[in-house]
């Protein structure tokens, strides 16, 4: 167990900067998720921690030791790969024993540790099989087992669940989280699935373009996104964005776009005025808007585009002027295409972004 510190880490492949001055600290025993779209540099970052890719500049420290020039084998870490990377010519038992054999652990202890890891993951009955004889879920368990037979300083996981089907993924998500709670080993978990990051991690680093956009707890990331990218990436359905001009209408500050106008509360007015250009982007999550009947007093006029019932919630796609939005309504909601309605924004949960910098205001 150890803290992992990235200090001003850069990785460039030729002219392409894959990881751009990334610095953060993963505390001892912490579960951190690196999340972002493909090509955002999250896997490259992980591979640099693992020692599989050399740094262009910066330093990485694991447990107080600078590991920049250490071989992967000398970093005392374990890694789980997306395709599991089980050794095809070895049995499950031999796969689990391999990391211990490489470290010259005595035979009796190897057996005991393999047995314990196998029991932990309920794969004891598979120990004599070959990887190709296992299902995807079983292979995944073996891959996890091979990581936890040792007592490494940190676990690195590179999209370990993305090859599993949806149900198994949810199940393994819970199990990995439980394993972390039991072992309390530092975990760096790379995923493109914001849901995995939100549900499992103590803290999340949202990456894009090789830069950490925001680092914080799942709640911080969700409630106070630092910029439009984070706001749009975290949460499902995606946050609605409305680009508009800040203006005044009868003494009140309003934001107006093509075919719509939204009066702002006092707090939001102050924030909107902070925009240098007078142009802002409003961000509203689906559950912060209420669909009201056309006859209602509150809200702004809008029109239904289509309605998607999911049982518990019904997603209402709407036109607000020329902008399309998604709001959620109770499962009992009924509505028809083109039906005029009114849409009320919960202004306490409305996000404002500068239209040029895309930073939160």
């Amino acid at each position, binding site marked *: 167990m150890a803290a992992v510190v990235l200090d001003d880490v850069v990785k460039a492949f030729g002219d392409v900067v894959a990881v751009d001055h990334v610095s953060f600290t993963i505390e001892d025993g912490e579960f951190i998720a690196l999340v972002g779209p493909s090509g955002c540099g999250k896997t490259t970052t992980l591979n640099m921690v693992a020692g*599989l890719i050399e740094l262009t500049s910066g330093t990485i420290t694991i447990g107080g030791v600078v590991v920049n020039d250490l*071989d*992967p084998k000398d970093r005392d870490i374990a890694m789980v790969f997306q*395709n599991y990377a089980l050794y095809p010519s070895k049995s499950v038992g031999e796969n689990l024993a391999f*990391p211990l054999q490489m470290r010259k652990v005595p035979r009796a202890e190897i057996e005991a540790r393999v047995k314990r890891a196998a029991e932990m993951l309920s794969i004891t009955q598979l120990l004599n099989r070959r990887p190709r004889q296992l299902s995807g879920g079983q292979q995944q368990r073996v891959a996890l087992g091979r990581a936890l037979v040792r007592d490494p300083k940190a676990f690195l996981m590179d999209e370990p669940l993305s090859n599993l089907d949806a149900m198994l993924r949810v199940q393994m998500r819970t199990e990995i989280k439980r394993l972390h709670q039991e072992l309390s080993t530092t975990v760096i978990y790379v995923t493109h699935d914001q849901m995995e990051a939100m549900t499992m991690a103590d803290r999340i680093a949202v990456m894009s373009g090789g830069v950490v956009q925001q680092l914080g707890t799942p709640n911080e990331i969700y409630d106070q996104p630092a910029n439009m990218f984070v706001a749009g990436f975290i949460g499902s359905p995606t946050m609605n964005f409305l680009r508009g001009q800040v203006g005044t209408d009868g003494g009140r500050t309003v934001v107006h776009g093509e075919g719509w106008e939204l009066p702002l509360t006092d707090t939001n007015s102050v924030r909107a005025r902070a925009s240098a250009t007078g142009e802002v982007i409003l961000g509203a999550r689906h559950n912060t808007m209420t669909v009201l009947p056309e006859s209602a007093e509150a809200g702004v006029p809008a029109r239904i585009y289509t309605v998607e019932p999911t049982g518990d919630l019904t997603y209402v796609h709407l036109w607000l002027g020329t902008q399309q939005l998604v709001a959620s309504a109770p499962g009992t909601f009924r509505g028809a295409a083109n039906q005029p309605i009114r849409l009320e924004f919960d202004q306490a949960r409305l996000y404002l972004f500068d239209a040029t910098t895309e930073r939160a205001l």
Partner: protein
Amino acid sequence: MTTVAGVRPRGRVAARGWPRPRIKTLDVIATLWLILLLAFALIPMLWMLSTSLKGQFAALAQPPEWIPSHPTLDQYQTLLSPTGTVGPVFLRYFLNSMIVSLTTTALGVLIAIPAAYAFSRFQFPGRDVLFFAVLVRNMFPVVVFLIPLFILMRALHLVNTHWSLILTYMTFGLPLSIWLLKGFYDNIPEELERAARIDGASRFKAFWLIIMPLSSPGIIATAIYAFIGAWNEYVYALTFLNSESLLTLPVGLQHFFTEFATNWPGLMAAAFIMSVPVVVMFMLLQKQFVQALTEGAVKA
């Protein structure tokens, strides 16, 4: 169970849209074609075997005896007995061929494995050019290099040594070996080595313990290729060697039997013995060989 098993093939045929009789016609044509190919390959072999078991006169009899009426192992005895006039010479040729072919194979594989691995895994300047250059040697007929290589060998003082042949044969076999093995390594996910390196193996150990076992079919295939190439080669052996005691089987046999009156059964027996190592090797390693060629094919 039986019903399911009985229904399944019909379902598959129907799903593919192949009417049953047509499959049969195709099967018949395929079988006939295979028999034809087999005959083409086997009849000369069988004729060779048959002749080797005959006496001198029976070998030249007209009409030919397809199956020897008085089969004899005399020729084999003569060739393989370490005493007498013919045996020691023949065994010497056999040994020479073994030395040259096995050394060529061993060295070739030893060079091809790291070369192919490097081409597959590492990015280095001039990689693509080098990889293409490896093939250039195979774009010319073998004979074109006869004189240049002879001059080269003379400069190296290797003429009339086995090394001249070993080096030459390696230039034939290596390009193909490297290409074949590279295809193999390309197919092995890099994550396996990465996992091994994180699990505590050095780069070399990861290769040795994880990648090598997976690429063994490819290595076996390239070894067979290199061995056969060296075992059967004639022109270079004829040009580079002149000491009787150094000759390899193909050249040796020719010298041997034209010096005396042509002894057909003897020649056939010698040829048969010569083909034994290759046939045995193929039979033992056939599965790996086919796997190697098809896996390379999928990648390409």
